[in-house]
Protein backbone atom coordinates (compact mmCIF):
# COMPACT_ATOMS: atom_id res chain seq x y z
CA UNK A 1 0.00 0.00 0.00
CA UNK A 2 1.47 3.34 -1.04
CA UNK A 3 1.66 6.36 1.25
CA UNK A 4 -1.14 8.10 -0.61
CA UNK A 5 -3.42 5.08 -0.31
CA UNK A 6 -2.69 4.85 3.39
CA UNK A 7 -3.73 8.49 3.94
CA UNK A 8 -6.76 7.83 1.78
CA UNK A 9 -7.72 4.85 3.97
CA UNK A 10 -7.41 6.86 7.18
CA UNK A 11 -9.29 9.81 5.71
CA UNK A 12 -12.07 7.46 4.63
CA UNK A 13 -12.78 6.76 8.29
CA UNK A 14 -14.51 10.17 8.33
CA UNK A 15 -17.35 10.16 5.79
CA UNK A 16 -17.34 12.99 3.29
CA UNK A 17 -20.62 14.31 4.70
CA UNK A 18 -19.03 14.74 8.14
CA UNK A 19 -15.87 16.50 6.99
CA UNK A 20 -17.35 19.97 7.29
CA UNK A 21 -17.73 22.60 4.60
CA UNK A 22 -15.83 22.15 1.33
CA UNK A 23 -12.67 24.23 0.85
CA UNK A 24 -13.33 27.75 -0.42
CA UNK A 25 -11.55 26.97 -3.66
CA UNK A 26 -14.06 24.21 -4.45
CA UNK A 27 -17.03 26.47 -3.62
CA UNK A 28 -15.65 29.39 -5.65
CA UNK A 29 -14.94 27.06 -8.56
CA UNK A 30 -18.51 25.75 -8.43
CA UNK A 31 -20.00 29.25 -8.45
CA UNK A 32 -17.84 30.31 -11.36
CA UNK A 33 -18.65 27.08 -13.20
CA UNK A 34 -22.38 27.94 -12.94
CA UNK A 35 -21.63 31.35 -14.48
CA UNK A 36 -19.67 29.70 -17.29
CA UNK A 37 -22.54 27.33 -18.04
CA UNK A 38 -24.97 30.26 -18.25
CA UNK A 39 -22.53 31.95 -20.62
CA UNK A 40 -22.45 28.80 -22.73
CA UNK A 41 -26.27 28.86 -22.84
CA UNK A 42 -26.03 32.38 -24.36
CA UNK A 43 -23.67 31.02 -26.99
CA UNK A 44 -26.06 28.11 -27.60
CA UNK A 45 -28.81 30.62 -28.46
CA UNK A 46 -26.45 32.41 -30.87
CA UNK A 47 -25.41 29.07 -32.41
CA UNK A 48 -29.09 28.17 -32.87
CA UNK A 49 -29.69 31.51 -34.61
CA UNK A 50 -26.68 30.93 -36.86
CA UNK A 51 -27.73 27.36 -37.70
CA UNK A 52 -31.20 28.59 -38.70
CA UNK A 53 -29.99 31.61 -40.70
CA UNK A 54 -26.74 30.34 -42.22
CA UNK A 55 -28.26 29.82 -45.69
CA UNK A 56 -30.25 33.07 -45.82
CA UNK A 57 -27.63 35.14 -47.64
CA UNK A 58 -30.23 37.28 -49.50
CA UNK A 59 -28.31 37.05 -52.78
CA UNK A 60 -25.15 38.36 -51.11
CA UNK A 61 -21.91 36.52 -50.38
CA UNK A 62 -22.40 33.04 -48.91
CA UNK A 63 -20.38 31.33 -46.20
CA UNK A 64 -18.40 29.33 -48.77
CA UNK A 65 -17.38 32.55 -50.58
CA UNK A 66 -16.18 34.34 -47.47
CA UNK A 67 -14.30 31.98 -45.19
CA UNK A 68 -10.68 30.98 -45.60
CA UNK A 69 -9.78 27.73 -43.84
CA UNK A 70 -6.07 28.42 -43.43
CA UNK A 71 -6.78 31.70 -41.63
CA UNK A 72 -9.10 29.87 -39.22
CA UNK A 73 -6.53 27.15 -38.60
CA UNK A 74 -4.01 29.80 -37.47
CA UNK A 75 -6.64 31.43 -35.21
CA UNK A 76 -7.46 28.01 -33.72
CA UNK A 77 -3.77 27.29 -33.15
CA UNK A 78 -3.35 30.62 -31.30
CA UNK A 79 -6.30 29.96 -29.02
CA UNK A 80 -5.35 26.34 -28.32
CA UNK A 81 -1.74 27.26 -27.54
CA UNK A 82 -2.94 30.06 -25.26
CA UNK A 83 -5.11 27.53 -23.42
CA UNK A 84 -2.06 25.36 -22.72
CA UNK A 85 0.16 28.27 -21.63
CA UNK A 86 -2.70 29.48 -19.42
CA UNK A 87 -2.76 26.02 -17.83
CA UNK A 88 0.99 26.19 -17.16
CA UNK A 89 0.46 29.70 -15.77
CA UNK A 90 -2.26 28.46 -13.37
CA UNK A 91 0.11 25.74 -12.13
CA UNK A 92 2.77 28.41 -11.55
CA UNK A 93 0.20 30.45 -9.56
CA UNK A 94 -0.59 27.42 -7.41
CA UNK A 95 3.12 26.92 -6.74
CA UNK A 96 3.46 30.63 -5.93
CA UNK A 97 6.16 30.97 -8.57
CA UNK A 98 6.18 34.63 -9.61
CA UNK A 99 8.64 34.46 -12.52
CA UNK A 100 6.99 31.60 -14.37
CA UNK A 101 3.52 33.08 -13.69
CA UNK A 102 4.58 36.27 -15.47
CA UNK A 103 6.27 34.26 -18.22
CA UNK A 104 3.38 31.94 -19.08
CA UNK A 105 0.66 34.54 -18.61
CA UNK A 106 2.51 37.01 -20.87
CA UNK A 107 2.67 34.34 -23.57
CA UNK A 108 -1.05 33.67 -23.02
CA UNK A 109 -1.73 37.38 -23.43
CA UNK A 110 0.32 37.63 -26.64
CA UNK A 111 -1.44 34.60 -28.15
CA UNK A 112 -4.83 36.05 -27.17
CA UNK A 113 -3.95 39.39 -28.78
CA UNK A 114 -2.79 37.65 -31.97
CA UNK A 115 -6.07 35.72 -32.10
CA UNK A 116 -8.02 38.96 -31.71
CA UNK A 117 -6.00 40.82 -34.35
CA UNK A 118 -6.47 37.96 -36.83
CA UNK A 119 -10.21 38.10 -36.16
CA UNK A 120 -10.27 41.90 -36.52
CA UNK A 121 -8.41 41.70 -39.84
CA UNK A 122 -10.97 39.15 -41.05
CA UNK A 123 -13.87 41.39 -39.96
CA UNK A 124 -12.20 44.41 -41.57
CA UNK A 125 -11.77 42.54 -44.84
CA UNK A 126 -15.42 41.45 -44.80
CA UNK A 127 -16.65 44.98 -44.07
CA UNK A 128 -14.40 46.25 -46.87
CA UNK A 129 -16.01 44.03 -49.51
CA UNK A 130 -19.52 44.99 -48.41
CA UNK A 131 -20.20 41.85 -46.36
CA UNK A 132 -21.07 43.69 -43.14
CA UNK A 133 -23.67 42.58 -40.59
CA UNK A 134 -26.42 44.54 -42.33
CA UNK A 135 -25.96 42.71 -45.68
CA UNK A 136 -28.02 39.59 -44.89
CA UNK A 137 -29.51 37.53 -42.07
CA UNK A 138 -26.62 35.10 -42.43
CA UNK A 139 -24.03 37.85 -41.89
CA UNK A 140 -25.98 39.33 -38.94
CA UNK A 141 -25.95 35.93 -37.26
CA UNK A 142 -22.27 35.43 -38.10
CA UNK A 143 -21.12 38.78 -36.70
CA UNK A 144 -23.24 38.34 -33.56
CA UNK A 145 -21.90 34.86 -32.82
CA UNK A 146 -18.21 35.37 -33.65
CA UNK A 147 -18.26 38.97 -32.34
CA UNK A 148 -19.64 37.84 -28.98
CA UNK A 149 -16.83 35.30 -28.73
CA UNK A 150 -14.33 38.03 -29.64
CA UNK A 151 -15.78 40.32 -26.95
CA UNK A 152 -15.37 37.52 -24.42
CA UNK A 153 -11.72 37.11 -25.43
CA UNK A 154 -11.23 40.89 -25.07
CA UNK A 155 -12.80 40.81 -21.60
CA UNK A 156 -10.56 37.87 -20.72
CA UNK A 157 -7.45 39.80 -21.78
CA UNK A 158 -8.47 42.81 -19.64
CA UNK A 159 -9.05 40.43 -16.73
CA UNK A 160 -5.60 38.90 -17.28
CA UNK A 161 -3.96 42.34 -17.06
CA UNK A 162 -5.84 43.05 -13.81
CA UNK A 163 -4.76 39.68 -12.40
CA UNK A 164 -1.10 40.29 -13.26
CA UNK A 165 -1.32 43.70 -11.54
CA UNK A 166 -2.86 42.01 -8.50
CA UNK A 167 -0.02 39.49 -8.37
CA UNK A 168 2.44 42.39 -8.58
CA UNK A 169 0.75 44.41 -5.80
CA UNK A 170 -0.92 41.84 -3.52
CA UNK A 171 1.26 38.77 -4.13
CA UNK A 172 -0.08 35.23 -4.08
CA UNK A 173 -2.76 35.63 -1.43
CA UNK A 174 -5.41 32.85 -1.39
CA UNK A 175 -7.90 35.41 -2.74
CA UNK A 176 -5.67 36.26 -5.71
CA UNK A 177 -4.94 32.65 -6.60
CA UNK A 178 -8.67 31.82 -6.44
CA UNK A 179 -9.33 34.64 -8.92
CA UNK A 180 -6.56 33.35 -11.12
CA UNK A 181 -8.14 29.89 -10.94
CA UNK A 182 -11.46 31.36 -12.14
CA UNK A 183 -9.66 33.21 -14.93
CA UNK A 184 -8.19 29.88 -16.09
CA UNK A 185 -11.67 28.32 -16.16
CA UNK A 186 -12.97 31.29 -18.18
CA UNK A 187 -10.14 31.07 -20.70
CA UNK A 188 -10.54 27.32 -21.21
CA UNK A 189 -14.33 27.70 -21.59
CA UNK A 190 -13.78 30.24 -24.37
CA UNK A 191 -11.66 27.65 -26.14
CA UNK A 192 -14.54 25.15 -25.90
CA UNK A 193 -16.90 27.70 -27.48
CA UNK A 194 -14.34 28.27 -30.24
CA UNK A 195 -14.41 24.53 -31.09
CA UNK A 196 -18.12 24.97 -31.85
CA UNK A 197 -17.44 28.13 -33.86
CA UNK A 198 -14.77 26.70 -36.13
CA UNK A 199 -16.68 23.44 -36.66
CA UNK A 200 -20.11 24.91 -37.37
CA UNK A 201 -19.27 28.27 -38.93
CA UNK A 202 -15.98 27.82 -40.75
CA UNK A 203 -15.75 24.10 -41.57
CA UNK A 204 -19.52 23.81 -42.06
CA UNK A 205 -19.31 26.54 -44.71
CA UNK A 206 -17.32 24.36 -47.11
CA UNK A 207 -19.43 21.20 -46.92
Amino acid at each position, binding site marked *: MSAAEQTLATADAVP*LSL*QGPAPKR*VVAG*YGFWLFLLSDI*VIFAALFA*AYAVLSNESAGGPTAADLFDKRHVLIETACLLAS*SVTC*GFGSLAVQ*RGDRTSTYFWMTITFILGISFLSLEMSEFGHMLGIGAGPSRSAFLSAFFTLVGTHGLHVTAGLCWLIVMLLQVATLGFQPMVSRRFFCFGLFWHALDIVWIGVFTIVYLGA*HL
Partner: protein
Amino acid sequence: MSTENIAQGVAPGAHVHTHGAHRSYLIGSSYAVILTLASFWASSTDVIYPPGVPILLGVLAIAQMGIHLVFFLHISSAPDQTNNVLALAFGIFVVGLLVFGSMIIMAHLNHNMMPMDRLMQLQMQR
Protein backbone atom coordinates in the same frame (compact mmCIF):
# COMPACT_ATOMS: atom_id res chain seq x y z
CA MET B 1 -1.01 17.76 -0.90
CA SER B 2 -3.07 17.71 2.25
CA THR B 3 -5.01 14.71 3.53
CA GLU B 4 -8.21 16.65 2.97
CA ASN B 5 -7.55 17.03 -0.74
CA ILE B 6 -6.80 13.35 -1.18
CA ALA B 7 -9.95 12.37 0.69
CA GLN B 8 -12.08 14.57 -1.53
CA GLY B 9 -10.70 13.05 -4.68
CA VAL B 10 -8.46 14.60 -7.25
CA ALA B 11 -9.16 15.45 -10.86
CA PRO B 12 -6.57 14.66 -13.53
CA GLY B 13 -4.07 17.49 -13.62
CA ALA B 14 -5.06 18.74 -10.19
CA HIS B 15 -1.88 17.37 -8.57
CA VAL B 16 -0.27 20.70 -7.91
CA HIS B 17 3.18 19.78 -6.73
CA THR B 18 4.09 17.11 -9.22
CA HIS B 19 5.19 17.02 -12.83
CA GLY B 20 2.03 15.06 -13.61
CA ALA B 21 0.04 18.29 -13.89
CA HIS B 22 2.21 19.68 -16.66
CA ARG B 23 2.06 16.32 -18.40
CA SER B 24 -1.73 16.33 -18.16
CA TYR B 25 -1.90 19.67 -20.01
CA LEU B 26 0.52 18.38 -22.64
CA ILE B 27 -1.44 15.14 -23.15
CA GLY B 28 -4.70 17.11 -23.36
CA SER B 29 -3.28 19.57 -25.85
CA SER B 30 -1.84 16.84 -28.07
CA TYR B 31 -5.25 15.14 -28.19
CA ALA B 32 -6.80 18.53 -28.97
CA VAL B 33 -4.30 19.21 -31.77
CA ILE B 34 -4.92 15.79 -33.32
CA LEU B 35 -8.71 16.25 -33.18
CA THR B 36 -8.50 19.79 -34.61
CA LEU B 37 -6.32 18.69 -37.51
CA ALA B 38 -8.65 15.72 -38.09
CA SER B 39 -11.63 18.12 -38.33
CA PHE B 40 -9.85 20.36 -40.83
CA TRP B 41 -8.74 17.32 -42.82
CA ALA B 42 -12.22 15.75 -42.80
CA SER B 43 -13.81 18.94 -44.12
CA SER B 44 -11.52 19.13 -47.17
CA THR B 45 -10.94 15.51 -48.12
CA ASP B 46 -12.66 13.46 -50.81
CA VAL B 47 -11.87 10.15 -49.12
CA ILE B 48 -14.96 10.24 -46.90
CA TYR B 49 -18.49 9.75 -48.22
CA PRO B 50 -19.66 13.42 -48.42
CA PRO B 51 -23.03 13.10 -46.55
CA GLY B 52 -21.15 11.49 -43.67
CA VAL B 53 -18.74 14.42 -43.20
CA PRO B 54 -21.05 16.62 -41.02
CA ILE B 55 -21.60 13.71 -38.64
CA LEU B 56 -17.85 13.06 -38.45
CA LEU B 57 -17.22 16.78 -37.78
CA GLY B 58 -19.82 16.72 -35.00
CA VAL B 59 -18.25 13.66 -33.40
CA LEU B 60 -14.75 15.19 -33.59
CA ALA B 61 -15.98 18.50 -32.10
CA ILE B 62 -17.80 16.79 -29.21
CA ALA B 63 -14.75 14.62 -28.54
CA GLN B 64 -12.51 17.69 -28.43
CA MET B 65 -14.91 19.48 -26.07
CA GLY B 66 -14.73 16.41 -23.82
CA ILE B 67 -10.92 16.49 -23.92
CA HIS B 68 -10.94 20.18 -22.96
CA LEU B 69 -13.39 19.57 -20.12
CA VAL B 70 -11.31 16.75 -18.63
CA PHE B 71 -7.74 17.93 -19.19
CA PHE B 72 -8.12 21.74 -19.03
CA LEU B 73 -11.21 22.38 -16.89
CA HIS B 74 -10.51 19.29 -14.73
CA ILE B 75 -14.10 18.02 -14.69
CA SER B 76 -14.01 14.49 -13.32
CA SER B 77 -15.96 11.99 -11.24
CA ALA B 78 -14.06 13.02 -8.08
CA PRO B 79 -16.30 13.55 -5.04
CA ASP B 80 -15.65 17.32 -4.90
CA GLN B 81 -16.82 17.54 -8.51
CA THR B 82 -20.32 16.05 -8.06
CA ASN B 83 -22.02 19.44 -8.17
CA ASN B 84 -19.98 20.55 -11.18
CA VAL B 85 -20.89 17.41 -13.12
CA LEU B 86 -24.60 17.80 -12.27
CA ALA B 87 -24.52 21.45 -13.38
CA LEU B 88 -22.73 20.41 -16.57
CA ALA B 89 -25.39 17.79 -17.31
CA PHE B 90 -28.12 20.41 -16.88
CA GLY B 91 -26.15 22.86 -19.07
CA ILE B 92 -25.82 20.28 -21.86
CA PHE B 93 -29.57 19.58 -21.58
CA VAL B 94 -30.45 23.29 -21.96
CA VAL B 95 -27.98 23.74 -24.84
CA GLY B 96 -29.46 20.70 -26.63
CA LEU B 97 -33.02 21.97 -26.16
CA LEU B 98 -32.11 25.43 -27.46
CA VAL B 99 -30.11 24.38 -30.51
CA PHE B 100 -32.07 21.35 -31.71
CA GLY B 101 -35.42 22.81 -30.65
CA SER B 102 -34.81 25.98 -32.68
CA MET B 103 -33.62 24.03 -35.70
CA ILE B 104 -36.62 21.65 -35.68
CA ILE B 105 -39.16 24.44 -35.17
CA MET B 106 -37.67 26.65 -37.88
CA ALA B 107 -37.40 23.74 -40.33
CA HIS B 108 -41.10 22.95 -39.79
CA LEU B 109 -42.07 26.59 -40.22
CA ASN B 110 -40.11 26.77 -43.47
CA HIS B 111 -41.74 23.56 -44.63
CA ASN B 112 -45.27 24.79 -43.88
CA MET B 113 -44.78 28.24 -45.33
CA MET B 114 -46.40 28.98 -48.68
CA PRO B 115 -43.81 29.42 -51.48
CA MET B 116 -42.86 33.09 -51.85
CA ASP B 117 -44.19 33.51 -55.43
CA ARG B 118 -47.66 32.21 -54.50
CA LEU B 119 -47.70 34.51 -51.48
CA MET B 120 -46.95 37.45 -53.78
CA GLN B 121 -49.73 36.34 -56.17
CA LEU B 122 -52.23 36.24 -53.33
CA GLN B 123 -51.28 39.75 -52.29
CA MET B 124 -51.59 41.00 -55.89
CA GLN B 125 -55.13 39.58 -56.17
CA ARG B 126 -56.42 41.52 -53.22
